[in-house]
């Protein structure tokens, strides 16, 4: 067991290190701005006094390294400073929106993950059949479509033509869960379609790869019936690839969510990020980037740790 703990510890350490490097990149990239943040915020026409005042207010008179440490120590406790456009605390701006985004992603994941894995396994078992070929073309088409294309098509049919679901997902405090699920159905469905396509393909590839192993052939030649080959021989070895597929696609959800939120005017963190980018509200941009990157790293970490924990070679060392 010591081996496994060591490996997991190592992987965790690497994750923390990468997150640290990314925080450096995110912070110091802003330093690359022509001029500085104050200049960028106030524009060319700003007077010297205004600039100086803003610089002082933002602490720009301090050296960059000090400001970085300051920012990082704040970020650890989820304090990302104040927005330079509205002056509000960044945490107040994005806190609730982050929860909304998580809700949307979870909504999509709960539908997509089980369906995609089951379908992926079925397609893998029926490989080279007409069903497999059709599934291949369909999933490829969904992967190739931009999220906003799928989103607008869904709006066109479900919201405009058939009027089954609302096109715009405005949320309010006093909604029941059922209402919430209906309101956010279209954005969730868009995400489901894209992520499911990705996941099905990856699951199929992983399973086919597994079924080509000599020990699967051995199991067949030992006379094991097909269900037993899958359940007893393939599945115990399939966890690592499946965990990997799930984690990768949840990570993909994070990116996909930005565009979908914009299409459906959903009050999530992606929408906030896009707004902040166009207003050049750097503290908000940095905070959003760090949150997205941290989630992304966390999911990749989970996949790797899962793969380590389910590897029989590591679970039963020599």
């Amino acid at each position, binding site marked *: 067991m010591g081996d496994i703990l060591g490996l997991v510890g190592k992987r965790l350490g690497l994750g923390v290190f990468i997150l640290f490097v990314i925080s450096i990149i995110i912070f110091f990239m802003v330093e690359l701005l022509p001029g500085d943040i104050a200049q960028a915020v106030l524009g060319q026409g700003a007077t010297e006094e205004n600039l100086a005042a803003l610089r002082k207010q933002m602490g720009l008179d301090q050296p960059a390294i000090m400001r970085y440490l300051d920012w990082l120590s704040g970020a650890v406790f989820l304090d990302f400073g104040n927005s330079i456009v509205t002056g509000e605390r960044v945490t107040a701006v994005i806190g609730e929106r982050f929860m909304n985004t998580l809700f949307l992603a979870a909504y999509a994941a709960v539908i997509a993950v089980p369906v995609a894995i089951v379908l992926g396994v079925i397609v893998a078992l029926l490989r080279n059949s007409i069903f497999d070929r059709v599934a291949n073309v369909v999933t490829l088409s969904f992967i190739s479509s931009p999220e906003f294309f799928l989103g607008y098509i869904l709006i066109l049919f479900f919201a405009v033509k058939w009027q089954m679901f609302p096109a715009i997902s405005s949320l309010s405090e006093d909604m029941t869960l059922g209402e919430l699920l209906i309101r956010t159905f279209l954005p969730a469905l868009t995400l489901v379609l894209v992520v499911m396509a990705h996941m099905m393909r990856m699951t199929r590839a992983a399973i086919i790869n597994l079924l080509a192993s*000599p020990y699967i052939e051995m199991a*067949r030649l030992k006379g*094991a019936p097909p269900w037993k080959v899958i359940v*007893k021989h393939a599945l115990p070895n399939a966890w690592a690839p499946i965990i990997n597929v799930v984690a990768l696609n949840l990570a993909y959800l994070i990116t996909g969510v930005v565009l979908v939120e914009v299409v459906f005017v959903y009050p999530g963190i992606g929408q906030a990020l896009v707004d902040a980018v166009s207003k050049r509200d750097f503290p908000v941009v940095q905070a959003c980037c760090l949150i997205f990157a941290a989630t992304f790293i966390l999911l990749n970490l989970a996949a790797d740790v899962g793969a380590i924990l389910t590897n029989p070679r590591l679970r*039963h060392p020599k």
Partner: protein
Amino acid sequence: MTNKKEVLLEIKDLEIQGYSDETWVDIIKGVDLTLHRGEVLGLIGESGAGKSTIGAAAMGYARDGTRISNGSIEFDGMELTTASESEKRALRGHRIAYVAQSAAASFNPSHKLIDQYSEAPLQYRLKKRTEAQEDAMELYEKLRLPNPQEIGFRYPHQVSGGQLQRAMTAMAMSCKPDLIIFDEPTTALDVTTQIEVLAAIRDIVDEYNTAAIYITHDLAVVAQMADTIKVLLKGEEVEEAPTKEMLDSPKEDYTKSLWAVRSFKRDQKERPKDGTPLISVRNVDASYTGGDKVLDDVSFDVYEGMTVAVVGESGSGKSTTARVITGLLPPSKGEVLFKGEPFPPDYRNRTKDQLRQCQMIYQMADTALNPKVKIAEIIGRPAQFYSGLSGAALKNRVDELLDLIELEPSKYYNRYPPELSGGQKQRIGIARALAAEPTFIVCDEVTSALDQLVAEGILKLLDRLQKELNLAYMFITHDLATVRSIADEVVVMQHGKVVEQGPKTKMFTPPHHPYTDLLLSSVPEMDPEWLTTLLEERGVDNVGDAATAQIDPNDPKISG
């Protein structure tokens, strides 16, 4: 041998097709096969001959991308080509079992050995779990596995290769089948390990009077195992006869060429008196980054115009020694001298002339020649690189080299390696080494991937070149027949150490170092009685891993 017995398996006019490039092509073209109860049939042929495909077909099984297109397979009165999937499945593991080439890959990494053993008996409701486990232990003991009570409760990756192969044989025996298909069960093993697996398989097959199809490309191995031998070539049968008859008087030319005992032999040369050796390896220690020592105080000399054979099993460090000499792996201690001058340890620090002196010929000609480069450039590049030849001079040089390796220049000049046969490719590899005009060539298992007859041609060519160009060879090999034919001196290695070295004649006459002795005796010979005699002489507990473990590497008989 028991002749007039009940027919167990009868294959008639079998044709199997494989799917490639969007079409079905024939890979088995009408093969017949008859197997009686308790009989062992050896299927032999090169890779691509279709032996393995026939083996699977005997279980009514067609691998992915293949299909049985014609013929009949009758197992104990049941026609497998028309049987339903569940009928065929009921035979597999129960009445016909399979032993795969790579045991390490064919055991499921997630289950214990004994659970995989008892899977079939439980499924066919032949035994209860505890009974099956007791059975397994008994079989493990018969197969001479260490700790038979305990070994089954390990996972596959916790057991060594030779043991896994025996555990797989035990698994095949779990339902006491009528027929076992052995698909190259010892190919991936070392000679000293192979011998105990062979002995174990033979005992168990004899004891339960099981019929078997033994698939291999190694003639000497099949001679020990089979009652009858069938030779295959490109999906067609060449001939079939009882083992003894087949070995003594093969009829077809192809079979004769396979059987051809190495006839080539040349006289042993003596070291020049008081000359400096061309290459001198002095007290070399080496290890790969972060690993254990793979070479431990290795020293030997190679004189001009002479051949030194380095012999040992995989992991003995013979290839690593070559890497140290060529400079790919700088030693951690010791040095390599060239004509008495130290060679820079890293090839990157060697001068063009130093690099030129020492060339290499590889085992796998497939990976040694860039498939996307024309022959003319493969051979021409060293001449261009070292001697600065170009234009007509370069072309002349390439023609000359092709002549030297006995290939028609105009025919091969513009071709690519994948268009050539194995022997031709190996010749191109030799030409590339010669193009640098070296004095020393490392030959890394150059003949082991080739058929007997082709290999013989290569050896003759190397010998002729040595005489004409006064080359020195370091011949890495595990094949003692090759050593006998071409070596002047022999170096035996084990676990990174030189255990014995000296002139060839001395090495092949007793007394030997115990390891040399074990190695010499473990190499199968074409005589069908070889294994029996050997086991009688040495005793079953004195072969294979057990014997290796008994050897003290610091035996005083190590000569220097």
